């Protein structure tokens, strides 16, 4: 059925590569958390890779990504290095934020990964603001902002969506609806069926829903709404239906989710299902295995680089509060 798609094979393979890299990266992050090399916390997007991959590949280099603490995938797929990301998770000197941000604050400005935000909702108005700057310059740059289903109930969501709509900002809001907040189902805390799509009309926006486990569907939706924003036709709110394979964070076993529900969604794993589609589409398996092997060695190299890396220089504790590099508040 692939040939129905207006997507060339190289893009299909890049979509596959993106998901595989994200998957391998986070599986490793989980193992290293259990091992104790990664400290603090991690929030994995395992199972949600199609959303990150589909959007990342639909974006131009200059476009900006804003995501949450569950942002490993998004940051990686904008171009951040596995070593820098894993180093940040492990609190090593080679961390992408110098180990000062940690798992919840992965940021790679050079690659337009504009930050992972750890307080629910805050980055929606921030993404709108970045889009406002693009609009002022009319430079055709688009901001894409990822957040979860539970985020649709916080005030900042409402304020950001309204401002973006009223100002016609070039921003795409992407709700990754994985059915749960931390340990509570989204359906327990909303009075509508679709946490994002059913709110779109409050801002004069179309309700847009996509199968978040179908990377091709996501890629097509992403290309469409990003193009719309780039044209100056304003913001979009997309709800991607997906599921996280693991718990909310750290070692959470996710026991609050019914077994059959989990099993059902594991069957719909975005990577294995896409792999079968590619095979069915006649893509030579060797392409796929080499992508897998490359990703495997990439994460292995990153892992050993991080194992060998030093902890951050104590001097850095007092740097970079201010633009002059210092933290001085007095003379």
């Amino acid at each position, binding site marked *: 059925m692939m040939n129905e798609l207006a997507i060339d094979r190289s893009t299909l393979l890049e979509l596959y590569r993106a998901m595989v890299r994200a998957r391998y990266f986070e599986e490793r992050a989980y193992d290293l958390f259990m091992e104790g090399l990664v400290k603090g916390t991690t929030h994995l997007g395992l199972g949600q890779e199609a959303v990150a991959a589909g959007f990342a590949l639909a974006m131009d280099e200059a476009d900006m990504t804003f995501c949450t603490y569950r942002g490993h995938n998004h940051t990686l797929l904008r171009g951040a290095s596995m070593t820098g990301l894993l180093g940040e998770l492990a609190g090593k000197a080679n961390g992408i934020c110098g180990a000062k941000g940690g798992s919840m604050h992965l940021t790679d400005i050079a690659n337009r990964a504009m930050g992972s935000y750890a307080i629910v*909702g805050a980055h929606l108005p921030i993404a709108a603001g970045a889009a406002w700057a693009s609009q002022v310059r009319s430079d055709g740059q688009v901001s894409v902002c990822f957040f979860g289903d539970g985020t649709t109930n916080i005030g900042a969501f409402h304020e950001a969506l309204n401002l973006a709509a009223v100002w016609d900002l070039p921003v795409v809001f992407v709700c990754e609806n994985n059915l749960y907040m931390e340990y509570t189902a989204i359906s327990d805390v909303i009075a509508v069926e679709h946490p994002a799509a059913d709110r779109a009309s409050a801002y004069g926006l179309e309700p847009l829903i996509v199968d978040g486990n179908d990377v091709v569907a996501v890629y097509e939706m992403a290309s469409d709404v990003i193009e719309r924003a780039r044209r100056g036709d304003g913001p979009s709110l997309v709800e991607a239906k997906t599921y996280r394979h693991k718990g909310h964070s750290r070692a959470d076993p996710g026991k609050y989710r019914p077994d059959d529900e989990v099993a059902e969604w594991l069957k719909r794993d975005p990577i294995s299902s896409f792999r079968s589609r590619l095979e069915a589409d006649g893509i030579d398996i060797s392409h796929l295995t080499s992508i897998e092997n490359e990703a495997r060695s990439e994460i292995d190299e990153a892992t050993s680089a991080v194992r060998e890396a030093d902890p951050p220089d104590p001097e850095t504790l007092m740097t970079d509060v201010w633009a002059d590099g210092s*933290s001085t508040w007095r003379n």
Partner: protein
Amino acid sequence: MAELTYRAAVARGISQEMERDDRVVLIGEDVAAAGGVFKTTEGLLEQFGPVRVRDTPISEEAITGALMGAAMNGLRPIGELMFSDFLATCWDIVANQIAKTRYMTGGQVELPLVIRTANGGGTRFGGQHSQSLENWAMTVPGLKVVAPSNARDVVGLLAAAVRDPDPVVFFEHKKLFAEKGEVEDGEIVERLGEARILRKGDDVTIVALAAMVPVASRAAEALAGQGTSAEVIDLRSLVPLDTKTLLQSVAKTGRLVTVEENPRLCGWGAEISSIVAEEALWDLDAPIVRVTTPHIPLPAAAELEDLAIPSPERVVEAVLGIQ
């Protein structure tokens, strides 16, 4: 007499008060079915049912607003903010509405409510999930501010907070959740505004709060070994503030060191220092030293975070510096 974790003491304190008074209810994110993300409300849903223990959406303004409205209308609600950092997402409700309403209405409105929240660093969570924000609450007239340092105080001070007719912000320290302490059976109720002298001493007064209390105690131990006798005071609540105990101690020791987890500027220790500098200057035999987290956000890396937060070594150094 049982050994309880600080974490379990939270549930014990809430349970004690909910059993005693039907008007006490609990809301927050993941507090019911999940028993709280820090497992501080485990068993309460089972014990008191879904009407009195209720999960909320991720809506901190709605949570705190609901506490205020319910308190105005006859309940004595307890609300959980998962991390104290999230006080910022509902600060208008807490600082402008809850704190000021009694005064602005000429005393017409009573707001017996408690906002419980997980506070403090040392958990490698990074700058947005590690702040020590007791001083934010202390800046706001109309809020009582409590921060227990041990399991028994968690029960007794939480009970006092729930029974208090005024709004209380109750800071539970993340770093202490796993700490065990002896907690006797039966009802425990403390009084707000009473500091505790944990260790008597003659040479210097060390004042601490919450997770800085064990730090101060360890410092005092070390100092004793070096012949310096330190008096350690656990403030327990910032509002009301037990200035009597503080001033009496300084009158005796002539030296004061505060140990604050908050970043330096306008921390609670600044207020205490200014009170002593105004009311007990002539008692001082040495400068007042504040040991605080530097005025920076907290870093995520273990090595950096441990450097940032006051340690027993830094306290010892500070004390020896003014001997």
